[in-house]
């Protein structure tokens, strides 16, 4: 019988809109979690696939020694495909011409991600090419055709092997972006590598194996492989590693999405919590009546547990459907805007969303439900009886535990979840106390005000305890909204700064020292915005504190002997060194001091390199520049923003150290696409200067940022809805309390106008105070997030100090006034009856 009663109650209550807020809260939490995680998962997969093209693989293992075939076989067993790639410098000969080249020997399957493009004639139209050069053939970059005066079908000697040039290599996905790779590429088949005779003991070669597969297979392979790797010999890279502007944008976007989604989940859960409380309060009378009619405790438990379960399940189902549709729609818009297709998502988001809905609805209702079941039947005669609340600790435990569990489940990061939760709990306690103080203070201020204000203040004061809890949820909602909004603005502004409309789109290299001044003058004449000219001196770092660094493959490496701890691995290549008297723009000193005008020789080192090589202030580095060996101490460490398209350097020396060495200069500048035709005229007097076009890479970054900005906008809307729902649920919940007071005041003859004003004022004050507290909390949270999570500079947001209280007052005021309007319009008799 009880299930009939339960179902009947649910059906009617749903029809009559009495469960709307509870249902909406659950639906929203499920919709938000589902659409967010579906969307982020698909977007991320899409972005990763895109970025994987830059690696030509999902993962790259790089080694100083040949990688055993058994590792590739192990990968194949785990459904991970692989291909070998070896890159080294050499000389190439064609007839009596010779040139320095980068040889890239690759095995079948290369590239695992992205595509090769080739042309049949130098500067001819290129097309996507599958397959690789056959044994004995070489595909050659167009620059080399010029340099060696080659033609298709000509021979090219590399080491001891003669190759036939069969195609022009126009695009390799993994060509990388480095201004210094100015020697043209030659692509050969891996089977010909040994025949060149170029790889011998002592050769400076990185042996790479590319891997690709689905994430599960890769994870499986990684868990097998990683324990076998040796930090000194191997490096394991994925797309997300590295300093590329793309990787950094991606990481930040990912963190933001995760954080915003977490806040969205917390907000939605808060809405469920508030609604659950009210849901149970609404049923106090029904339980008392049923008990009076002889309903047993077990019947009542069964009726209301089933009622809640059904409500939850229906809401979860609706939430899943809505979430799916919403996400599908957004994906379609994104795909349309960006002309990209995104891969399908896994089942995980659906499970996650369902779990969020179920867990939050059931856990937040646990205590209110317990109270509900304990409502004494005597309530039918004494309407003030609400059962005991000796178990309220259980409520805090269940609610806190649930929010924490949701954070962990959603982020799968203990540390982030714990930090957010602890911060949140602390903030809640603070907000509660500040709220009460505010209410007390405003009461005193209110005593001097007009009657509607006085009534409002008195109301605030009377309900201080209830109000401070309400204020907590108002403040939390407003704070989270402001936080997401501010973070979004910061993030977009940061990207905007990184890639402004006038971001450099050309690099120039090989500028003679004598040409620097005249080139700068020509830029100025044509209104071209250019970065500073940076001198380049190629050199090697050879020792740290008198101990030589390992730069080449040595006998010990081959026999696999362990390294001595003292010896560090060097860069394995020539470095581009520069000198400067001032700190480069977009660099920030993280340790030490920048040098003055007439300082002793010294060097400033980039922070990441310092960390990787265990270097710090005071360490003495030995450099070899063209046979000239000298030592310099490190006197500062710089954080470099690699996202900027300006020349950036690991090592910057003071002018005294380097300026006497022969150097060429580099810079970058912006030239709008429609002025491209000026390039020829601009550089005609400087024939040795090489020009690199960055438009392709900046376009790619812009595209990613556009996708991510869209995603962020989407997250923001969801968080806004969740926040609005919390506010609405909270206002609704407070109505019943106010009802009694209204009856008394109406009966005593208070005019409707006075009442509606006093209610509006009460909510306005509540909203304004909540907004103010929220802004304060938001600044604090933002400061921590910016400095700790996003590695951005912290800023104050003065606008929000106005927006917060104002928006709080308006939103809460309007919601409160609208919700209470119905009560005020009812006549006194109706009100009294509804309370009787």
């Amino acid at each position, binding site marked *: *019988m009880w299930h*009939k*009663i339960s179902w*009947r*109650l649910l059906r*009617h*209550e749903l029809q*009559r809109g*009495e469960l709307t807020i509870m249902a909406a809260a659950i639906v929203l939490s499920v919709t938000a979690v589902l659409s967010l995680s579906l969307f982020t998962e698909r977007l991320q997969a899409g972005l990763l696939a895109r970025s994987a093209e830059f690696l030509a693989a999902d993962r790259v293992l790089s080694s100083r020694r040949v990688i055993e075939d058994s590792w590739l076989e192990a990968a194949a067993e785990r459904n991970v495909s692989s291909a070998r790639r070896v890159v080294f410098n050499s000389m190439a000969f064609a007839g009596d011409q010779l040139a320095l080249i980068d040889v890239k020997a690759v095995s079948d399957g290369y590239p695992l991600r992205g595509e090769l493009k080739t042309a049949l004639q130098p500067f001819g139209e290129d097309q996507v090419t599958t397959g690789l050069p056959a044994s004995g053939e070489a595909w050659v970059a167009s620059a080399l055709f010029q340099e060696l005066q080659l033609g298709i079908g000509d021979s090219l000697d590399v080491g001891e092997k003669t190759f036939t040039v069969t195609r022009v290599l126009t695009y390799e996905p993994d060509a990388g972006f480095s201004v210094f790779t100015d020697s043209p590429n030659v692509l050969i088949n891996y089977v010909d590598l040994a025949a060149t005779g170029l790889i011998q003991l002592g050769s400076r070669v990185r042996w790479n194996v590319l891997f690709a597969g689905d994430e599960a297979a890769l994870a499986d392979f990684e868990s097998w492989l990683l324990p076998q790797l040796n930090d000194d010999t191997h490096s394991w890279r994925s797309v997300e590693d590295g300093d590329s502007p793309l990787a950094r944008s991606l990481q930040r976007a990912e963190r933001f999405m995760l954080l915003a989604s977490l806040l969205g989940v917390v907000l939605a859960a808060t809405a469920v919590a508030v609604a659950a409380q009210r849901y149970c309060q609404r049923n106090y*009378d*029904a339980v008392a*009546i*049923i*008990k*009076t*009619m*002889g*309903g*047993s*405790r077990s*019947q009542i438990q069964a009726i209301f547990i089933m009622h809640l379960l059904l409500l939850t399940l229906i809401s979860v189902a609706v939430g899943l459907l809505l979430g799916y549709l919403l996400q599908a729609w957004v994906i379609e818009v994104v795909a349309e805007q960006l002309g990209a297709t995104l891969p399908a998502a896994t089942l995980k988001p659906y499970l996650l969303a369902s779990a969020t809905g179920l867990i939050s609805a059931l856990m937040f209702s646990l205590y209110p439900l317990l109270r509900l079941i304990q409502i*004494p*039947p*005597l309530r*039918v*005669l*004494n309407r003030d009886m609400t059962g005991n609340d000796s178990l309220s600790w259980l409520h805090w435990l269940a609610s806190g535990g649930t929010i924490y569990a949701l954070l962990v489940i959603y982020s799968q990061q203990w540390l982030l979840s714990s930090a957010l939760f602890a911060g949140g709990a602390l903030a809640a306690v603070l907000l509660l106390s500040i709220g009460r103080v505010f209410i007390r203070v405003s009461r005193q201020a209110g005593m001097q005000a007009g009657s509607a204000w006085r009534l409002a203040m008195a109301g605030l004061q009377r309900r201080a305890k209830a109000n401070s809890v309400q204020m907590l949820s108002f403040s939390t909602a407003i704070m989270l909204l402001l936080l997401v909004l501010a973070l979004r603005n910061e993030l977009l502004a940061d990207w905007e700064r990184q890639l402004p409309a006038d971001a450099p789109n050309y690099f120039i290299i090989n500028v003679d020292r004598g040409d620097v001044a005249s080139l700068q003058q020509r830029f100025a004449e044509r209104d071209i915005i250019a970065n500073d000219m940076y001198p380049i001196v190629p050199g090697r770092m050879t020792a740290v504190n008198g101990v030589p660094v390992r730069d080449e493959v040595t006998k010990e490496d081959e026999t696999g002997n362990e390294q001595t701890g003292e010896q560090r691995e060097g860069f394995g290549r020539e470095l581009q060194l520069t000198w400067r008297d001032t700190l480069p723009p977009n660099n920030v000193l993280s340790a030490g001091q920048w040098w003055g005008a007439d300082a002793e020789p010294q060097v400033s080192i980039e922070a990441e390199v310092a960390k990787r090589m265990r270097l710090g202030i005071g360490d003495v580095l030995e450099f070899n520049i063209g046979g000239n060996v000298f030592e310099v101490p490190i006197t500062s460490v710089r954080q470099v923003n690699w996202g900027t398209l300006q020349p950036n350097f690991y090592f910057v020396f003071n002018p005294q150290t380097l300026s006497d060495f022969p150097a060429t200069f580099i810079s970058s500048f912006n030239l709008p696409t429609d002025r491209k035709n000026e390039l020829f005229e601009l550089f005609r007097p400087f024939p040795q200067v090489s020009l690199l076009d960055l438009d392709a890479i900046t376009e790619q970054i812009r595209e990613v940022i556009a996708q991510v900005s869209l995603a962020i906008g989407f997250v923001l809307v969801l968080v806004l809805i969740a926040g609005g729902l919390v506010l609405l649920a909270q206002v609704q919940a407070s109505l019943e309390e106010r009802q009694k007071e209204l009856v008394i005041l109406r009966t005593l003859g208070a005019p409707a106008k006075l009442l509606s004003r006093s209610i509006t004022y009460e909510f306005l004050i509540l909203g304004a105070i909540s907004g103010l507290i929220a802004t304060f909390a938001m600044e604090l949270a933002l400061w921590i997030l910016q400095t700790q999570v996003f590695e951005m500079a912290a800023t104050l947001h003065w606008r929000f100090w106005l927006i917060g209280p104002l928006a709080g007052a308006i939103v809460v005021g309007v919601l409160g006034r609208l919700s209470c309007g119905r009560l005020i319009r009812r006549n006194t008799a109706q009100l009294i*009856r509804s309370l*009787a």
Partner: protein
Amino acid sequence: MLIQTTQLRKDVQTTDGILHILQPIDLQIAAGETVAIVGASGSGKSTLLSLLAGLDLASSGDVLIDNEKLSELDEEQRAKLRADKIGFIFQSFLLIPSLTALENVMLPAELAGNRQAEQQARELLGKVGLSERLTHYPNQLSGGEQQRVAIARAFVGTPKILFADEPTGNLDAVTGQKVEDLLFQMNQESGTTLVMVTHDSDLAARCHRVMRMDAGRLIEVQQHVA
């Protein structure tokens, strides 16, 4: 005796000490009797009613309903007793707002596991003149109609005892009179024992016995023979 109390007391602890709401009360009500309890506000009428119905527990003394000692029953057993033997009518009707008139009347019968709940409820609503209003929700009914639904609900389990707390207190005089007539008519037809708390002396006068509560004491003031 269907209802019997011996030395029934109710005390509550207040900040000013113990408050004696009910002085020791001895009361006997036979099956089929109609009893009105009158008295000023705060005299203890409703408390007595709540103790008689097993909604609350006495501080000392005992209530026997149909020879069952309430003090020896736990909450579940008292609920069972109410389901089997007791019906209620309240001043504020206390219908469940999200159930229709028919469903409100069916509720006690369903809780008692009665398979003819709907059938009986329809008949009773017919008797109180609400056959046309079966699917209406309480807020779609007038006060008088709501109380008629409540009367139908009170009779649905064919209870031995009916407790009524100010059954016409929320109704205007004309409607009150109609509800009153209906209540007595149905009570007579079913032979139920009626215990009613009221302010209304005319209503009280229609009962076999009238008792007055005064500061927690019960005095029998009137006895009619039916």
